[in-house]
Each structure stands twice: as structure tokens, then as C-alpha cells.
């Protein structure tokens, strides 16, 4: 038996190109539908799990999908803005707790999520190293983001400018990392969390600069009108919030009009949820969405696509399988003389058949093994692919 398997192995190794093509074909026949199934299952599980844990999202009218993906996965597409007043309104309704979300800026390729400490509690995000953000200009970093940015408590991250050509725009803000979160295997691992007010500072809605009432700042004064001092362009603005300059930071305008991308509403019960949804049903400028509904719609689309892909893969697979069988049959015919030789020098019909079938078995086993390995890899790393696909 060992001898015949050795012969089969030598045959397969000698015809390595033919073998590689056959193994690839068999691998693809099995892996395409299996891998896709795994990916779809994972996406279903991932999308619904996080969506299920997020009861309601309120935002400006626009694409519900964009609003949901931005709020749940901090995607790169920024939805229409709503206002901070919306969060206050939800709170005042007494129907739900409100968590403001402002997901617009990035530090390198990681999203900066402007929110409140309630968000960390809501998602059950625990600090692995350091502490939570406490004052303006501090941030806590998700586990994967910390790895990618190579930062830990005491380090700094700098917000990325939205456009490199906007030289008159907002200066990047240097923020101190005060904590790194525990790994959660979710979108939160890739984000940098700051207080929502810090994100407004990044946008330039709040700023800090030298005290213009001081005599040494006279060069920066454009004009004085009673108590009002108007600075000129030479006034030095701070691009980092420190204990020394934090008192100089202030916001111009009414905070309730400041932008948010969404408000996560956490109703006390189903009744409160229904009432809250009823309130916004006919609102012209505001929408309220159940992330689970949005994700299920998205899943329906994915499942439809999967059905098309699987149907295509099965058709191609059947054709490939038929071709593979033909290759094996032709190979057996071409090897008729070899069979006769083996038989003449003393090989039994069974031994000769074993040599021939071992080749097929080796190819099939390699193809199936590779397909299983790829499927296992998809199972293991599919979530990373998915996150990349949905831009989270």
C-alpha cells in the first residue's frame, strides 16, 4: 500500500502544474459557496448583534443606512448633521436617555468619536490601561486603534485636517491619550473617543487663545468697543488643550445649535420606545431609525446578492467539476500503457487501480483541505474583511 501511494505521490508531484490547476479548481468549487456562506453568516451576526444593542438612533433626514452605519460603525461617510438640542429634547421627553454622537473627524485613518462618558457605559467599554477622558482635549483609544496608532496613556494623537488645501481652515488639535480600552472585537476597537465638546473644538466651534485684555497681547487687538475686544488674525490660537490654557477655551454661540451626526436614544421600555418613535414619525427634518430594521434590510440585500453569487458559483462549479472529471478520465486513458506495464511486472489489478485512484484522492484531498483551510481563515478573519467592506 505504501508503495502504491508513493507512486501516486510521485505522479502528482511530477505533474505539478496539472495538479495545481486541478487542486485550484476543486478548492474554488468548494470554497466559493462555503466561504461566502461563512461571510454572510458572520455579517448577519455582526450587523444584527450591534444593531440589536442599539435601540434607536435619531438624526437629520437623509439616508437611514448612512445614519446607522455612521453611528454604529463610525463609517467614513458623514450623514446630514442634526443639533445638540436634539439630545436635550430626548432627555427632556423623559422617554429615553440620550447619547450624543459626532463622528466626523479622523486621526490618520481612525475615526474620532465625539460623545459622552455615557456611551462608554452604554457599550460596556472598560479601560484596560489608564482612565476615561475627564476634561476637554483628552481622549481614550480603542484597543486596535492604539495598536495601529502606536499610542498609550501619556501619548498624543492629532486630528487630521479634512482638506489639506484648506489653509484657512481649522488647525489640527493635539489630544492627550489618557486611556486605552479593552478589546471588544467590535467597531469601538478602531475608534478614538473624546468628549463631544472636544470634537467641536476640532471643528473650530470652540477655541482657546491668548488673553487679549493683557497689555502684551495689544498687537493682536483689531479694535476695542467697550468691553468687547476684537482680535486680528495674528492672535495665537492654541492647538493643544493643557492645564495652563484650558481656561481660555470657550465656545462662540449657543451649544444647542452645535452639530451632531446622531443621538442614540435608549428608551426605558418598549412603550417609551414606541412613543418616541411616534414623536418623530412625521418630523420633517429629523428621522428616527431602529438600527435592527436598517440592518435587516441591508442583510436582505446581501442575501439576495449571495443567492445570485451562489447560483453562479454552483453553475461554474458544476462545469468545472465536469471538466475535472474529464481530465481524470483522459488521464486514465492516457495511462493505459502504464497500467499494463505495472500489471506485467507483477502489480495486481487492485494495486494498479490504487495507484491511479490515489492520484485522484491526493488531488481531491488537497482541494478539499485547502477549501476547508480557506473557509476556516474566512471564519477567523472574516470580520476584518467585513469591517473594511462597510468602511468601519
Amino acid at each position, binding site marked *: 500500500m505504501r*508503495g502504491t501511494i*508513493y*507512486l501516486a505521490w510521485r505522479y502528482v508531484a*511530477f505533474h505539478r502544474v496539472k495538479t495545481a490547476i486541478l487542486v485550484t479548481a476543486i478548492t474554488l468549487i468548494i470554497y466559493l459557496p462555503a466561504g461566502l456562506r461563512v461571510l454572510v453568516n458572520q455579517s448577519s451576526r455582526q450587523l444584527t448583534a450591534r444593531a440589536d444593542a442599539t435601540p434607536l438612533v435619531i438624526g437629520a433626514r437623509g439616508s437611514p443606512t448612512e445614519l446607522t452605519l455612521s453611528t454604529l460603525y463610525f463609517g467614513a461617510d458623514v450623514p446630514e448633521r442634526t443639533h445638540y438640542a436634539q439630545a436635550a429634547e430626548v432627555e427632556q421627553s423623559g422617554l429615553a436617555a440620550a447619547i450624543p454622537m459626532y463622528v466626523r473627524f479622523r486621526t490618520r485613518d481612525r475615526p474620532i468619536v465625539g460623545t459622552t462618558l455615557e456611551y462608554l457605559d452604554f457599550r460596556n467599554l472598560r479601560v484596560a490601561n489608564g482612565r476615561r477622558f475627564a476634561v476637554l482635549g483628552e481622549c481614550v483609544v480603542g484597543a486596535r486603534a492604539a495598536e495601529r496608532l502606536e499610542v498609550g496613556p501619556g501619548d498624543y494623537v492629532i486630528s487630521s485636517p479634512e482638506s489639506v488645501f484648506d489653509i484657512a481652515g481649522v488647525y489640527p488639535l493635539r489630544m492627550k491619550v489618557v486611556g486605552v480600552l479593552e478589546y471588544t472585537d467590535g467597531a469601538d476597537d478602531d475608534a478614538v473617543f473624546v468628549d463631544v465638546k472636544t470634537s467641536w473644538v476640532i471643528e473650530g466651534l470652540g477655541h482657546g487663545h491668548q488673553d487679549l485684555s493683557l497689555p502684551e497681547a495689544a498687537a493682536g487687538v483689531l479694535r476695542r468697543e467697550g468691553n468687547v475686544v476684537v482680535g486680528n488674525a495674528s492672535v495665537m490660537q492654541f492647538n493643544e488643550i493643557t492645564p495652563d490654557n484650558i481656561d481660555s477655551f470657550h465656545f462662540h454661540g449657543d451649544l444647542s445649535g452645535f452639530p451632531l451626526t446622531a443621538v442614540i436614544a435608549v428608551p426605558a421600555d418598549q412603550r417609551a420606545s414606541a412613543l418616541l418613535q411616534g414623536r418623530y414619525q412625521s418630523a420633517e427634518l429629523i428621522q428616527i431609525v431602529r438600527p435592527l430594521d436598517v440592518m435587516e434590510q441591508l442583510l436582505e440585500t446581501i442575501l439576495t446578492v449571495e443567492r445570485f453569487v451562489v447560483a453562479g458559483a454552483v453553475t461554474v462549479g458544476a462545469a468545472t467539476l465536469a471538466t475535472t472529471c474529464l481530465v481524470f478520465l483522459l488521464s486514465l486513458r492516457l495511462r493505459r500503457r*502504464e497500467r499494463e*506495464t505495472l500489471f506485467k*511486472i*507483477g502489480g495486481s489489478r487492485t494495486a494498479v487501480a490504487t495507484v491511479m485512484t490515489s492520484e485522484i484522492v491526493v488531488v481531491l484531498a488537497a482541494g478539499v483541505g485547502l477549501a476547508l483551510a480557506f473557509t476556516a481563515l474566512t471564519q477567523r478573519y472574516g470580520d476584518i474583511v467585513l469591517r473594511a467592506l462597510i468602511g468601519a
Partner: protein
Amino acid sequence: MIHIEGLVFRYGEGDFRLAIPGLTVESATTTAFIGPSGSGKTTLLNLIAGIVRPQAGRIETRGVAISSLSDDERRRFRVTTIGLVFQEFELLEYLTVLDNILLPYRIHRALTLDAAVRDRATDLAERVGIADRLDRHPRRLSQGERQRVAVCRAVLTDPPLLLTDEPTGNLDPVNREKVLDILFDYVAESGTTLVSVTHDHEILQRFGRVVDFRDFRAFSDGFRKPGDA
């Protein structure tokens, strides 16, 4: 060594019919079968080797009635008692020279492949001048080298009977002589019985006996001596 009596063989329903009233080949002799194509020379080799069975008659090799053995017994007998060399060499292209020589040991359980067998294969390869080609595949060998590999494979088990079917049919004169030298040197040294089918009348002088298949009736007493017209 070989004793044939009242042998009759035909392939299926075809016209071919081989009938041999009697034929004896003594041990440690060299015999050539000559005759026109289709006269049954190769068929007789196959019958002696037990590859096919006659419809009637008896074939005895080394005292064993091979025609009455079961398939498995005949295979075992063949692999341990008979070495075969074919006109087309019949080497497996995907095996190296060494693996081709060792092939009988890989294909039958009756033979055990061990270090001694490998050493013997290497020795044989050295004797026939292909020791430096053991790792090569047959397609990278000359025709003469391939037939030398086939001879090594045939004699590796040290068989008392060597059957060769047109062993020099595909070789140029120089290689033909080399291969024949190897075969006859081996036969002389080991005392092996050699039976060979050939069309090549130039090599008949090397054989101790020639059997002409042109007239089957003459088998019992019609053997020509080497050098006869």
C-alpha cells in the same frame, strides 16, 4: 526450466491461434524466438510469464505449472521468478531512474524494499553505466540509457528467468551492442535463463538456440542452430 506441452491460445474471437505441441527451454541457456510479426512470439512470452493463460495445454516453469496457478499466485511467481524487458522500455516518466529500477518492489507485497535492495539497484546502475543518472527522469536519458534502466529493473530481483521482447528494437547499433553485452554478461555471470523475442538477425549469433516461428509444426524438432541459413 520451461516445458510446454499441447499449448493452444487464441485472443477472443479473432483469427489468431497459437498452437505449440511441445517446447522445452533448458536452464541457464539463451534462446531467441524469431519469426514474422503476428506469428505469436510475444504471445508466447506472455504465456510463459503468466500474463495470459492458455485455453489448453500446460506451461511449466521451474517445475511450476504456471498456467494452472491463480491470478495472485501467477503474479507472485512472476515478480519473484521472472524479469521482463520490453521493446519500448516501459519506464514510468514520473519516476526517477532509481525509482524505476525499484518499481517491482513498490508494486508487489511479496518483495520488501530495504537498504540492501537499494544498494543492489545502485550497484546494477553502476555496472551498466548509469550510476550518475539515478536522479534523472527517463525523458532526460538516451534510448540506450533507458533500455539499460529497464534491464536493471528486470534483473533487480535476481530472477532465474529473463524474458526480453525486442530489447534492441529501438536502439542504434552502438547502443544495441552495449545493451546486449550487459544482458549476456549478466546471464553468463548469474546463470539466468534468457528467452528473447527478436527481429534482428544480426544478433542471433549471441544466442545458444533459435526458435523459428514460421512453421509451428517444426517446433519439436525444427530448431535452427545459430549461423544456420
